């Protein structure tokens, strides 16, 4: 990528593909992600739901690395409007976005913070792992998006969550959570947005990684010692991923944990700079790796 490119002019598709290839990807820019659903064990039994949907002609395939995820091969009707959907028996949730909650693995003993929670796919997934025990504090600054979160909490049978309409950056700097999910606002990726290449500017990426660093700072201050922070984005930009994690390691007493998920290790040589070797513990899901959108996941433990 041209280092003198104006931050206000959209980068070209070729610029991005060239950048991703320089980081080790073999993608083309034409990848897609299949439609997927997540079974909700709070509301139904997994085998019963699969039998019910199969009997109605829905063709599903279990995703081997997800606890409750199924790929939708075909369906004779809209799975976003079935009776089982309305009853909260499943959630339509992209493959990679099912990983953060699964990897954070909160239990009914945890006090969890979800820092950018709407529309609630990951919040409701964490509630399921917690069996409606413990507490989830779900925060989002956008009131309109919170309506969707509240509807999803109700539909999915969630009972252990308190929701706040506020900016996570305004939370008090007190270590009061055992686990934190920061699925950060980010630049997104071309797999889930067909117009992505035409509108993404350098300035967006700069704005996003600065915001993400503020959120990471806040997350560390809110986390108890020994507590786990799961940081994820659906961006492929190194500034929002490995470079943010490098910054986190340089500025706070945290260590990265191993991640049991598909994809590639975090990249440790970016723009000629060598990063901390432990960043290889992060996972970067290139869209051509395992058929997901672009995604990045890091798990840090506060020392």
């Amino acid at each position, binding site marked *: 990528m041209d280092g003198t490119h104006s931050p206000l002019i959209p980068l070209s598709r070729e610029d991005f593909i060239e950048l991703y290839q320089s980081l080790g990807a073999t993608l083309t820019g034409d990848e897609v992600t299949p439609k997927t659903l997540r079974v909700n064990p709070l509301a139904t039994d997994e085998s019963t739901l699969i039998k019910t949907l199969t009997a109605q002609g829905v063709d599903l395939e279990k995703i081997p690395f997800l606890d409750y995820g199924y790929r939708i091969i075909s369906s004779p009707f809209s799975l976003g409007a079935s*009776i089982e959907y*309305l*009853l909260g028996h499943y959630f339509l949730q992209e493959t990679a976005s099912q990983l953060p909650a699964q990897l954070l693995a909160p239990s009914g003993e945890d006090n969890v913070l979800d820092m950018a929670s709407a529309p609630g796919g990951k919040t409701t997934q964490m509630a399921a792992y917690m069996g409606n025990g413990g507490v989830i504090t779900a925060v989002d600054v956008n009131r309109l998006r919170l309506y969707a979160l509240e*509807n999803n909490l109700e539909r999915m049978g969630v009972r252990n969550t308190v*929701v706040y309409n506020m900016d996570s950056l305004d939370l008090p700097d007190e270590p009061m959570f055992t686990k934190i999910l920061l699925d950060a606002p980010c630049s997104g990726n071309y797999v889930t947005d067909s117009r992505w290449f035409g509108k993404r500017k350098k300035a967006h990426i700069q704005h996003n990684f600065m915001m993400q660093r503020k959120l990471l700072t806040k997350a560390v201050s809110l986390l108890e010692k020994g507590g786990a922070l799961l940081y994820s984005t659906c961006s492929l930009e190194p500034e929002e991923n490995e470079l943010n994690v490098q910054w986190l390691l340089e500025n706070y007493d945290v260590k990265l944990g191993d991640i049991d998920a598909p994809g590639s290790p975090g990249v440790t040589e970016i723009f000629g700079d060598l990063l901390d070797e432990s960043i290889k513990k992060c996972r970067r899901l290139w869209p051509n790796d395992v058929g997901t959108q672009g995604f990045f996941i890091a798990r840090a433990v506060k020392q």
Partner: protein
Amino acid sequence: MRLLRKFLIQVGSKYRPEDLLTINNKRFIEPVDARLPRDKMTYNGQYLGMNRKWFIPSNLLLQKLAKEEETKKAYVDRDAAWFFVVGRDIFEENIQRFEGDVKLGRYCLVMYGESCIGYGRYETSGSLRVVKNMFDVGDFLRRE
């Protein structure tokens, strides 16, 4: 509280929740430990429903009532259930069976298998008898 209690009595439930938390006209029970400013809170714990002209029960409350033996129920098959969740009334001929004391002019839960998909009032419509749709879980699609 009055509309919630009235709804519970109408469908034959013995459930009488106490110590409700009200946020923006929504009723909650068993709130979780809240550590942040109360004025920023929009949802907490188990959502029971909200007051409009009559009480609008939550999905959580409907499924709780579905498990109660005492509640009045009308069971329907998949086709009738589908019509009901898109806001339609159910003709008596499409009701598989009633459970509990369901009389004309009274209310009942509408059941699809073990799940409650809403509630209605058993009444006459011309020469026909129907369960008139008062609320159904298709509301999730209509409210977004």
